[in-house]
């Protein structure tokens, strides 16, 4: 939901003229195929580890590890990124609004500071350490924190929805100009146009390109397949589908509601222009903090309590997303240790909390490292640089799609498919294959979009980094196998398939 804050402004400022509601609907439809694909795999092989489990059997163990290693690295990246956004976007705008509402210079200064490298690192690091701690303390405290974060997050979302639904554009122009100065609303649009921004909606090319932004909040509803695999149930496929597809559809509905509210209240051209100025012509931007829907909504609220509810709500979403990424990373590392592909130490469970201490410590340290990388390097991770993660993510989805296409036809996996609840066909063709083909085409398209110059992935350094992660994954797999073999461990047997005679 935190994407509500930024995705519209990003889409309209990067792809002027895009009909982002159409982009959202298209992305939802295509992401549904990926969501069902993951639900089908999770019902066929109910084990924690997500794509690692699916691809190790669907393709080969080496490719399974390589793609999953990439997914794990990018998820640590994602943990760091979420904490960075928490500080630089949600917390900074919340503090600024509180400062404006109360007339307190302290809060206003804190808002500006939260967007600076030093403070955003401190805030982000505290949150990462907290997430590491709750992951260490076990699944119950972990989900308790998630429950509270979810309740606060939804409260914030509904408060923002209430504010937008009861406000007009004239009211917004008034409060915005009260914040940045008289004429600020029209000036922003004018200055952006003078600096190359194009006004007006209805550009289909931009709409299709903006799918790359729409995919970001919609593409990762598959998270539950990484952590909740082992519980068997006759209706497993329905449960998986409900969890994965349900969260995707709910997300899409909220994104569309807020899109229409935002356009009505803030104005289509203004949202694109203000983002364009902040990210491309910062010297001419009337805002010193990143523009976001929750920031503008909070300005409109004109009520400290509502401001606090919205602020806390949006901060709370970070406490939902980042721990999920951390837990996914830890579960995958544990799956690797079971298959002797990672040091035994990473799988050691502490007797009191039953959690893998060393996996959590490693994931926390690496996430802190990524945060520092984000904060203290320039050029690499500009606002769009994080799409390297999405590029990494979509390539993993492509691998799962290929596994899905071939799974019902491979001799060694055919029987698993045929005896599972996922064995559903359309005109004789397995839905698993159909979902795989559509996902392959869609993720291929999204990957292509991320590799375009605007995304940041296409820079030599970030592209090299992304490829490097895959190469490192493959090298680690080969090294682990060679090391175990030298120790006399028959690692070649781990994935050896037994023909049922």
């Amino acid at each position, binding site marked *: 939901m935190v994407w509500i804050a930024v995705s519209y402004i990003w889409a309209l400022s990067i792809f002027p003229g895009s009909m982002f509601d159409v982009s959202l609907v298209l992305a939802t439809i295509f992401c549904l195929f990926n969501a069902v694909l993951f639900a089908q795999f999770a019902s066929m*092989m109910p084990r924690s580890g997500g794509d690692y489990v699916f691809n190790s059997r669907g393709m080969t163990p080496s490719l399974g590890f390589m793609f999953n290693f990439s997914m794990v690295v990018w998820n640590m990246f994602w943990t760091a990124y979420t904490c960075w956004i928490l500080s630089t976007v949600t917390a900074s705008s919340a503090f600024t609004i509180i400062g404006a509402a109360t007339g307190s210079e302290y809060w206003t200064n804190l808002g500006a500071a939260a967007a600076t490298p030093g403070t955003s690192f401190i805030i982000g690091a505290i949150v990462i350490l907290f997430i590491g701690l709750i992951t260490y303390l076990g*699944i119950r405290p972990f989900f308790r924190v998630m429950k509270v974060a979810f309740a606060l997050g939804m409260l914030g979302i509904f408060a923002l929805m209430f504010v937008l639904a009861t406000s007009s554009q004239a009211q917004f122009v008034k409060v915005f100009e009260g914040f940045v100065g008289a004429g600020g609303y029209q000036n922003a649009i004018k200055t952006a146009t003078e600096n190359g921004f194009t006004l007006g909606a209805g550009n289909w090319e931009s709409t299709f390109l903006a799918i790359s932004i729409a995919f970001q909040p919609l593409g990762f509803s598959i998270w*539950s397949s990484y952590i909740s695999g*082992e519980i068997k149930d*006759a*209706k497993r496929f329905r449960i998986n589908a409900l969890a994965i597809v349900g969260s995707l559809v709910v997300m899409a509905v909220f994104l569309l509601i807020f899109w229409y509210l935002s356009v009505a209240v803030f104005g289509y051209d203004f949202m694109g222009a203000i983002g364009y100025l902040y990210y491309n012509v910062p010297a001419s931007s009337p805002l010193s903090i990143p523009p976001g829907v929750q920031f503008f909504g909070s300005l409109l609220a004109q009520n400290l309590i509502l401001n606090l509810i919205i602020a806390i709500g949006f901060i709370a979403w970070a406490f939902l997303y980042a721990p999920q990424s951390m837990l996914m990373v830890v579960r995958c590392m544990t799956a690797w240790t079971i298959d002797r592909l990672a040091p035994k130490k990473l*799988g050691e469970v502490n007797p009191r909390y039953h959690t893998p201490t060393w996996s959590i410590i490693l994931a926390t340290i690496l996430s802190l490292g990524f945060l520092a990388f984000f904060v203290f390097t320039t050029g690499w991770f500009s606002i769009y640089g994080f799409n390297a993660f999405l590029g990494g993510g979509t390539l993993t989805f492509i691998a799962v799609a290929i596994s899905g296409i071939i799974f019902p036809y491979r001799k060694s996996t055919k*029987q698993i498919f045929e*005896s599972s609840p996922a064995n559903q066909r359309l005109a004789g063709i397995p839905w698993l294959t159909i979902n795989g083909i559509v996902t392959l085409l869609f993720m291929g398209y999204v990957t292509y979009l991320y590799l375009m110059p605007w995304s940041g992935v296409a820079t030599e350094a970030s592209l090299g980094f992304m490829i490097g992660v895959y190469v490192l994954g493959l090298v680690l797999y080969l090294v682990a196998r060679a090391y175990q073999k030298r120790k006399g461990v028959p690692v070649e047997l781990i994935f*050896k398939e037994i023909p049922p005679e």
Partner: protein
Amino acid sequence: MSIDKIHMKIGKKRIRVFYTSDVHGSEVCFREFLSAGKVYGADIIIFGGDLSGKLIIPIVKVGADHYNTTFQGRNWDISGSQELDNLIKKIRFTGLYPFLMESSDVGKFDSQAEKDRLFVRLLTESIDEWVKLADERLKDSDLKCLIMPGNDDPTEIDPILAKGTRILNPDRKVIDIDGTYELASCSYGNLTPWQCPRDIDEAELADKIESICSPVTSFESAIFNFHVPPYDSGLDTAPKIAGDLKVIAEMGQPVMIPVGSRAIRESIETHQPMLGLHGHIHESRGTTTIGRTLCVNPGSEYGEGILHGAVVDLEGGKVKSHVLTSG
């Protein structure tokens, strides 16, 4: 209770053991178990309990060559012997027992007692076929095959297992392997919410285990083949079950708790055998150490036709190496 000690000769410096459990009626997994010796190059294959399936799937004959059933949450309306055979195969694959019946017989199995009788009949028929299959498949092989029941298996299957000529039920026995390793086995487990046939309370289980272990001369190279994993070992983490046998969930996630046996944990802590082979908790695949004892639970995905197992190499009275497999 007197415990038999059986001598088994392998005659090799390094002995490879393949262990698996919990196939729960899955014919494909049982067939894979019988093939595992050859595929993994094992000298001994051990099945650690729970052969029994969990459900009957009635297939009702509703017309001349027309059948109807509900399976995997969907209605199957099929015609012809080919489709019927395919469906029966699918049902067996997942570990369930297909039962073909006339529509006029539907009411005959309404009472729980009738259902139970039918279940035991289908189960024992299936085990009988499996024993014959094992004898046939292993007749020209040197492979040692140990098949033990688990807490889910009714005692009616013990005499059927005893009829096998190429298999041995190691339950409540100690098997001396080459005079170096002693394998002590126990099919019984602590109480579960499902009141399974071999569920007993912890005190009784502790007595049984001590009795089973009594012929063991050296625990240093002993192997405990106990169906249930030790309590709170990480190999016994399962969803918490409410009184109505439904999984308790928080935030859509099942609440996981340790459900293994305290008696078995105590026995491992006291005797410190070389190796503990366990099953029972399908979702708790992994390895751990308790003191000097390596404990293994390969987990189970019998419903998906995947045979999870553990390959353990023994040499010089020690565990040389181990891996969990996914065949």
